[in-house]
């Protein structure tokens, strides 16, 4: 038993504990100086995130797109590229799914939903192909191109909903997708759809592929040591190229699920930040699919918690969002806690020396 406990790697747990503690402490300073009781607020936030059916459902709804976007970021990262363009690919996927949803009439759900999602996947993959070709044919840095392509996607979708795909002159938005294209909802009282189930299954498959298959091994080799990969006959360029495409496809799927599950139509002010938060969550999950899955569930939960704090107190929304950001910041900035380990060693060494001295005497 003692050996078992000694063998566990406590480091990540201690880091998460320390960072949560520090973020709560610093958040408390903000709240006390604004005249609120931090204990109450944190309790409310926790309840709003993980206690009660509706709160849990809202947390899952928030987590759904984040699971997909963090996977998209991971796929690209594991094969050796940075896809900062998840946001733009998500927008393209969402509007493609919207188009398929409202213009293909009379299909049964069993065909209409997969078809619309396929449109989203293709749109995302095609949009990721632009930076992929630019990188591997012309050696253009993909970070710059994907960031730029994000802005282009925002403006292009805005053009589409303002002019060709506009439902009525009253508002810049597409028509609603047909009932047959909507993802079934899990409950009546929240917007969470079967999308969350697809997302979790997807994350597990992704974990399996990376961990257990030769394809996964290849990509890992490319991502972690591309010169060794070349030496052993794996083409890093090809793997990275397809990695980028798959990453874009998953980002498009994120947009499709979000549109067909939650919004039912593309509006000019489609929620932004899902793609960028995906990058954040991929890092929070320490670059592993299962880590990212839990990070997404945690992040979606805290978002829901911040929302409920806004519902039941007069605390400004900016303040509860600050608490959320603080938590993420401290968990991500784990390097800050590196000083804990040498300290421990020093402490142990001193003790040993002391013990040694005592023995000698």
């Amino acid at each position, binding site marked *: 038993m003692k050996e078992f406990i000694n063998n566990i790697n406590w480091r990540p747990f201690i880091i998460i504990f320390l960072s949560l503690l520090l973020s709560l402490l610093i958040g408390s300073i903000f709240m006390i100086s604004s005249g609120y009781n931090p204990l109450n607020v944190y309790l409310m936030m926790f309840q709003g995130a993980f206690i009660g059916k509706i709160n849990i459902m809202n947390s899952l709804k928030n987590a759904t797109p984040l699971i997909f976007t963090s996977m998209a970021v991971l796929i690209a990262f594991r094969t050796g590229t940075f896809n900062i363009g998840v946001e733009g690919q998500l927008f393209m996927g969402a509007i493609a799914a919207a188009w398929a949803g409202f213009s293909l009439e009379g299909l049964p759900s069993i065909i209409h939903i997969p078809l619309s999602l396929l449109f989203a996947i293709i749109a995302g993959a095609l949009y990721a192909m632009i930076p992929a070709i630019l990188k591997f044919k012309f050696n253009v840095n993909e970070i710059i191109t994907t960031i730029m392509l994000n802005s282009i996607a925002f403006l292009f979708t805005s053009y589409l909903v303002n002019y060709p795909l506009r439902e009525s002159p009253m508002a810049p938005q597409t028509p609603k997708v047909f009932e047959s294209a909507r993802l079934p909802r899990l409950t009546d009282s929240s917007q969470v759809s079967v999308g969350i189930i697809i997302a979790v299954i997807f994350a597990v498959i992704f974990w399996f592929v990376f961990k257990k298959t030769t394809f996964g091994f290849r990509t890992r080799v490319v991502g972690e040591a591309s010169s060794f990969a070349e030496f052993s006959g794996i083409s890093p360029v090809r793997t990275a190229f397809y990695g980028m495409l798959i990453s874009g496809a998953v980002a498009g799927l994120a947009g499709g699920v979000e549109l067909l599950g939650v919004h039912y139509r593309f509006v000019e002010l489609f929620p932004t930040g899902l793609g960028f938060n995906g990058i954040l969550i991929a890092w929070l999950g320490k670059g592993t699919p299962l880590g990212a899955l839990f990070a997404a569930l945690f992040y979606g939960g805290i978002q829901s918690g911040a929302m409920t704090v*806004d519902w039941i107190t007069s605390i400004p929304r900016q303040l509860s969002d600050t608490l959320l950001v603080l938590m993420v910041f401290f968990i991500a900035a784990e390097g800050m806690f590196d000083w804990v380990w040498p300290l421990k060693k020093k402490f142990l060494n001193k003790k040993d020396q002391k013990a040694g001295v005592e023995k000698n005497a």
Partner: protein
Amino acid sequence: MNKKLLTGVAVFVLMIIVLLSFGQNVQAETKKIALVLSGDLGDRSFLDSAYRGLKWSEERLDVETRYVEPANPSEFEPSIRAMARAGHDLIITLSFTMLDATNNVAQDYPDTQFAIVDAVSQEQNVTSLMFKEHVGSYLVGVLAGKMTETDKLGFVGGMEIPLIKRFQIGFEEGIKAVNPDAEINVGYVGAWDNPGNGKEIAKSQYQNGADIVYHAAGKTGEGVIAAAKEEDKYVIGVDSDQCYIAYDNMIASMMKMVDIAVFEAIQDVTEGQLEPGTKVFGLKQNAVGPCRLYSDILDLDNHKDFTGLDEAMKAVEEYKEKILNGEITVTDPMEMDTE
């Protein structure tokens, strides 16, 4: 004998209980009101105006109020739903971006009353609060047409939707009425919360010779006001009385009294008679037009006396009368579109 006394006491006690509970019922009439905003407070324009109406109702009526600032559009529906679930008697939402969410929740809570500003809903339990922005903008157009020296003016809109077209077309028609030769430069930003782009567009309009720019862009308009300060030109504010933001540059604000509309909707609910359908607020209801028309309810002491402004206001009064007695009809792009 004893039995009779007992019955008598029992009846008496029962009556008191009934009376007390009756009294409590009357006391429990405090209505619960929720306002779900379409963005963060602090735009010093549209959203702050709605919030002001809510605050008034808390001060003057027997109501309990709450407001919610959703972080992004995906939180609209959960937030409205949470307010309905919490048993609010009236839930007020803002702008067409919240129309879908409002309708969805209204269908699920048929006994709850809803009100939406700036969008028309067909639901039985949703009251639409609409303004005649084109008429108010016509009057600030008259004012601007009189005040301009370069005969060049600018307009900056938040989003290119019929609602904002109303501001633009009213403004243009008002200018043309008093100054047929004037040139009007129109720009749209595509966002309510992007002061940076608002400033860029306004700056280019000023640099092309415009000396007055009118904005209808919520928080984006803050950029327009900043541009006016930098270029030292005139600017016209919108929705709330914004003149205090730029004392030396803002010649007027086009008042759109969302606060009054919100307050009146709440008042109607406390009196138990908020009708579904559309309530329109125009000149007759004293709800639109340049701020100087409303010296009775606004504090205008801290507004600068620009040269020529009094004269321009005379023209505004004149055109206001003409609109009220039907001599002039301002084009309404929203009605054109629904036809």
